[in-house]
């Protein structure tokens, strides 16, 4: 395996050619998928027109692109990247390919608080709009995501953390959250409930810049921070004693990385709803593409973005003109993948 060292002011990373190739290939594919996505709509365009109209402010379609189609495509890509990064961190820390923010209660927790927000505020303000939707929803989702993670983590903690106990407790807590969500939806006004329903299936429909910006900010801040943490993340792969011997402050770095993962997943969920299985599958796909020992962070994010953009394209074209929520497509594709992982683990070849 060819690899080089990248050194910036005393910090160094190992850069692998294979990783670089996957990253750049993924970016090209992502741009292509986004362009294909942006063709679709009341005003059909060719891929060429999409590119020219994006950069030509005088073109009549420029407004459509900038205000409607680009935000949607960007939301999809960024949400996918954030979820995948979150999944890669959690899988590295849990040392378990089955772990993901969904199972840790982050996405389900965020779903509950957002639906609660929609139902409660709907009665007062007549719908979610303005400041509440751009600031309130991400904040609510963060709160719910953190709460969910704390509950699952706390309940699973019993003289240490067992990977499987964590997963099973997560399944139980997710059931409580899901049913609270059903209950909230029966309590609320019908129109608010319909709005919440679209959101909880994981949809990119009608996403604007207010959905892009929180995820973009979160990624801009957290990607560099998590890359700085790569070294301790690599060390966390070993047993707790080895990690301590390697000089990594284990509990601190583990807590910080988990916090970053929860923030990423919660912000992504606030923007697009719970898009299922992206966080689970992307790190594993990236790991196999790059053939590294554990989920590579950057490549996972790229794979996540490509997967979500591809799933959205499928969701919009498979039953056109009817459009499915992207979360439905990722679940249909992702669940068999989880099953495949399970059978691999049973055979002892993780």
């Amino acid at each position, binding site marked *: 395996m060819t690899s080089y060292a990248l050194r910036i002011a005393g910090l160094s990373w190992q850069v692998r050619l294979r990783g670089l190739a996957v990253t750049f290939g993924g970016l090209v594919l992502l741009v292509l998928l986004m362009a294909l996505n942006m063709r679709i709509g009341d005003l059909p365009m060719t891929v060429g027109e999409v590119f020219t109209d994006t950069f030509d402010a005088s073109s009549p379609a420029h407004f459509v692109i900038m205000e409607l189609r680009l935000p949607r495509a960007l939301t999809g890509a960024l949400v996918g990247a954030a979820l995948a990064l979150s999944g890669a961190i959690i899988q590295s820390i849990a040392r378990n390919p089955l772990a993901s923010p969904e199972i840790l209660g982050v996405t389900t927790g965020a779903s509950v608080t957002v639906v609660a927000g929609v139902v409660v505020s709907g009665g007062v303000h007549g719908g979610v709009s303005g400041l509440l939707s751009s600031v309130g929803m991400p904040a609510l989702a963060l709160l719910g995501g953190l709460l969910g993670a704390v509950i699952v983590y706390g309940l699973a903690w019993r003289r240490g953390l067992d990977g499987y106990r964590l997963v099973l407790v997560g399944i139980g807590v997710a059931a409580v959250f899901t049913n609270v969500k059903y209950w909230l939806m*029966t309590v609320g006004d019908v129109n608010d409930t319909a709005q919440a329903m679209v959101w909880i299936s994981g949809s990119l429909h009608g996403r604007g810049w207010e959905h892009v910006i929180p995820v973009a900010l979160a990624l801009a801040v957290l990607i560099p921070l998590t890359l700085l943490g790569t070294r301790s993340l690599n060390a966390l792969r070993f047993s707790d004693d080895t990690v301590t011997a390697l000089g990594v402050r284990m509990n601190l770095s583990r807590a910080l990385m988990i916090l970053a993962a929860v923030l990423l997943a919660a912000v992504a969920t606030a923007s697009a709803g719970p898009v299922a299985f992206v966080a689970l599958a992307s790190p594993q796909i990236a790991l196999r593409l790059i053939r590294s020992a554990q989920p590579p962070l950057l490549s996972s994010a790229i794979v996540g973005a490509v997967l979500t953009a591809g799933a959205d394209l499928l969701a919009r074209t498979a039953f056109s003109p009817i459009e499915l929520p992207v979360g439905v497509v990722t679940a249909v594709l992702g669940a068999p993948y989880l099953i495949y992982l399970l059978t691999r683990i*049973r055979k002892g070849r993780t």
Partner: protein
Amino acid sequence: MVATTAVKLPQLRHRRLTWLIGLTGVLVLAIVLSITIGAKAVPLTDAWHALTSPTGTESDIIIRSLRLPRTALGILAGIALGVAGALMQGHTRNPLADPGLLGVTQGAAFAMVASIIFLGTTSLLGFIWFGLAGALVASVGVFALGMVGGRGGPTPVTLALAGTAVSAFLYALTSAMVLLDEQAMDVFRFWQSGSIAARGTEVIWQVLPFIAAGLLLALLNASGLNALSLGEDVARNLGQNIALTRAVGVASVTLLTGAAVAACGSLSFIGLIVPHLARRVSGTDHRWLLPYSGLIGAALLLLGDVIGRVVAPPGELEVGVVLALLGAPFFVALVRRRKPVRL
């Protein structure tokens, strides 16, 4: 369970009979509560009047047309799901087995929605048949997945995860179909939260034969299941036809779950909790465990329904939601208490 084995046999029999009487008392209490409590509370004397000599007063109509069918359906579904849970846990030797957790419920939902969209099914009887078919395919599928590559069957964790994956897959397919078809959406909505309210008397008569057949198979299965719990090799040496015992078990679980969920919608966790409660008093002998599970299941479902009626006035909380809110903490406690071992 350790305590149970230490008890001497005559004592055990005495204890089992005492508990049987006690639980029957609890079920009767649950029935009385279910008939009298609701949006309009009906005094006991009026309820008795409605049951014995109805004259068409307001409370007579409420009780005979709403509360009575609701209670009867609750009893039926509770017995069915409790027994199905006990059978599933016995056959998989897995303390976390539950028709809802293992994807059987979602299988029934998927088949029912598909039948509405592609075949235009509208009658309840049609739903039941498709629900049964879906439940069968999903339960066989989950078992097969859990078995892959393992010696002696799936571990509790693999099975629970396989169930979650199958559920997620079927749920996604179902919601895709539902989003494409409004009529199916309407059926699915009622289905998702799980309720025994306003189902009407004819529903009860239609699911009754399926549940009765399922219960009969379950009772026939009890002694074979006892032998199987000693391990397949021992059971074979004892002269058990293992394939037949398994097939009868799967058929029974399918009939019970399929009929219950076709009539009431998705009711998860009741099949998980009930056998654990029943095992506390009955021990591991399935000839006792199955009837106990039925009794406790019926009482629990009715009590859950009554709680749902009073907890969120002026509306009601669906019994499926109540059961999940009660059952999931139980599940978490079960997972926390010890490493999930095979039964």
